[in-house]
């Protein structure tokens, strides 16, 4: 495996340090964050101290100070609800990650040190907020380039790894879709036609031929992903579904994720789900496009969020509703999706708690008996299609007490349930509207 070459010292550590230093201002006075009063005076003291130590070349002391900053801001990031966390604390966290990454790369080291530095950098990207002109992204790009230059190039065209053939098949039996009402399929409809017949009345549709020319359709494979993004740290959901008690989220590199949850007969289910991978790894973003139909939304182009789903067979997302309109593109593998219209919400038993309010308590095995009129479809790679789901619509949701359902009103969208049957599953989802 390519891992063996990591033991050797990478060539040209001088250029790495030069490239990183070039990103920083020349004097310590210029390396400053504008922070609000919410950040304690004591933290400002430490930030100043860490900056001074770095510019004075006192690397180990700088690492000690940044460690305290990382731990303290981490506690702030874990206080309360994520969306209420003051963005300045995330900036403090990013700044500390930046200094730590720089310190780790200061002295010549092997690929392991650079990979460790990239991990710190990724934590800043995942949990922090953009600072100093999104400097962490630039740092990540430099570190990635240096790590890649030390590896052997991927062999030949994409072949399926032997490990995949051993992966278990058929976790969930896929129901026959012929007997049920299928979602209509259209080939590249005009924007106006799409708007009039599907967007405005909020009906689901599959658009064929739209993403055929995207580079990802030809380029993406396990080897390619490992090559481009292997040492990047990503969040992974572990457990069959997020409503289970033993479900959890973990951070690991893409290589670790593939090795543990895709290849080598994985023992549990791991799913890289709903992660803005393409913001973190711009090299992958170059392989995908944004459907023209997204411009029909009310929001600005910047408000489009692009998430990635990457996982082994058998991953299940329980029946839930999304607050936004979605386009889903399946790149590799097959995914089974079942949709229920908002009129059927009454029968769908959402959870009582705040956290799972948008999720049904009913699992796929029960759906055939209890739930009426599902609209399923089976998506596969050959079609390279776009699936469009309707969304925000004033609708009745509910609060359930034991055995009884009583409607309440609140904005919601249609519900969908997905499960994967194929060996490998990569989809992308664009959310163009709020």
């Amino acid at each position: 495996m390519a891992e063996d070459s990591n033991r050797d010292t990478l060539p040209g550590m001088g250029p790495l340090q030069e490239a990183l230093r070039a990103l920083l201002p020349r004097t310590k006075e210029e390396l400053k964050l504008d922070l609000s009063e919410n950040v304690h005076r004591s933290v400002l003291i430490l930030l100043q101290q860490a900056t001074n130590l770095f510019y004075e070349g006192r690397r180990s002391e700088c690492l000690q100070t940044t460690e305290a900053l990382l731990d303290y801001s981490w506690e702030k990031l874990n206080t309360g609800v994520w969306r209420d966390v003051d963005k300045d604390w995330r900036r403090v966290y990013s700044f500390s990650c930046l200094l730590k990454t720089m310190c780790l790369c200061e002295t010549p080291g092997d690929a392991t040190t650079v990979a460790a530095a990239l991990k710190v950098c990724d934590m800043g990207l995942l949990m922090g907020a953009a600072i100093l002109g999104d400097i962490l992204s630039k740092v990540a790009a430099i570190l990635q380039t240096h790590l890649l230059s030390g590896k052997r190039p991927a062999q030949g065209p994409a072949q399926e790894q032997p490990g995949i053939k051993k992966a278990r098949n058929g976790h969930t039996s896929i129901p026959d879709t012929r007997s049920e009402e299928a979602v209509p399929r259209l080939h590249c409809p005009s924007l106006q036609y799409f708007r009039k017949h599907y967007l405005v009345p909020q009906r689901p549709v599959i658009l064929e031929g739209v993403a055929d020319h995207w580079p990802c359709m030809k380029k993406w494979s396990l080897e390619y992903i490992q090559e481009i993004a292997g040492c990047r740290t990503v969040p992974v959901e572990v457990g069959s579904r997020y409503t289970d008690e033993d479900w959890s989220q973990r951070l690991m590199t893409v290589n670790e994720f593939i090795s543990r949850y895709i290849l080598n007969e994985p023992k549990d289910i791991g799913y890289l789900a709903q992660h803005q991978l393409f913001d973190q790894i711009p090299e992958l973003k170059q392989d995908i496009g944004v459907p023209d139909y997204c411009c029909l939304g009310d929001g600005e182009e910047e408000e489009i969020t692009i998430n990635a789903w990457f996982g082994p067979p058998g991953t299940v997302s329980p029946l839930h509703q999304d607050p936004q309109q979605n386009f889903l593109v399946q790149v590799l593998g097959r995914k089974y999706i079942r949709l229920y219209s908002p009129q059927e919400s009454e029968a769908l038993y959402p959870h009582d708690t705040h956290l799972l309010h948008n999720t049904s308590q009913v699992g796929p095995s029960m759906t055939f008996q209890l739930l009426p009129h599902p609209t399923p479809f089976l998506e596969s790679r050959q079609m390279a299609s776009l699936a469009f789901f309707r969304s925000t619509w004033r609708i009745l949701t509910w609060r359930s007490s034991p055995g009884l359902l009583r409607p309440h009103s609140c904005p919601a969208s249609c519900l969908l349930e997905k499960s994967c049957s194929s060996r490998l599953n990569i989809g992308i989802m664009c959310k163009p509207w709020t």
Partner: protein
Amino acid sequence: MAEERRGSWFGFGFCGFGQALGSGRGRQVTSPEPLRAAGTDAEVCSVSASWSYTAFLSRERSGPIPPGPAPTCPRLLLSWLPAPAGAGQVQLSGSARGAAEGCRDAWASETLLVVLRDGRGPGAGAELQAWAPGSALCGEPLWAQTVVPEAQREDREDGEGDGTRARPLPLLPGARAYVSPLSPLYRPLAPELRARRLELGTEHALLLDEAGQVYSWGGGRHGQLGHGTLEAEPEPRLLEALQGLPMAEVAAGGWHSVCVSATGLSGHGPGVTGTTGDEGGAPASCIALQPFPALLDLPLGSDAVKASCGSRHTAVVTRAGELYTWGWGKYGQLGHGDTTSRDWPCRVEYFVDKQLQAVAVSCGPWNTYVYAVQRETS
């Protein structure tokens, strides 16, 4: 003779701002060290530690120690020590400096230093003041309020006789309100709660009432409220799992809670024994949540009498005068001479080795302060 029985404070853990912790050298101290004496006659009687600074409350010793052997039980020991004549001094160490006279109680947080001071002028009630830590207690406080004299009287009657207030900050005299480091600073409490003690965690609050019942409220996503769910509670809610078991003390950490009863220890929050951090310095991303109180056993069947929680660690003093710590240990706050985190209570051998009897403990977010006396040698 009197000097031998005198106790002193020890500290260990994070001191990256130079707050007094033994030698105070370097960023952290992993083994207990005696605190540098602030003054010669002043005796530190309580410690309130925030992340970047510590507030020491000290009093002049008012009279000689009574003759005869000191009691060995920590509770009796504190009441045996002579009650100080009046209020004393608050001294700050760390990112905040300065001192102030005439203080009865102090409570330190990153955003606020709260002190209870003697009123100005004879017969005046005590005054509650909230200061910005960086002000060095000079100038004017951010906020001040006179304490109602009736409330003060109540407090003194209920006192344990050891000179420290029966109802320490952040609980205010009279137990009708408490102080929060976040706005609003002054928060009323329902009088029927009859609060005896109140502890604030990062997202939650614990209240111990006169009957030994525990109430909790605030954020609950880490199971720190002990009601068996991860839901938040807007108002104080009785901890039903401990109903009927009188508690002697409560302690609130960053995201966990600990209660001490006459018979033992129970804790609830992330992990039965408090949160632990992984090697990377971040909380382990896969912690089993413990949303109901769980009984914690100390080794050798020891009885806990006092407890204090830091951000992600816990320290407990036993009846026999031993100190046990567990949780996050990255900054040496467990006092075992290393920076390893521990999932279960471990005895701090320093006090055993030095024949010291732990009497009281007070945790800052990332450090621990212990008051101990020399054991009588047989």
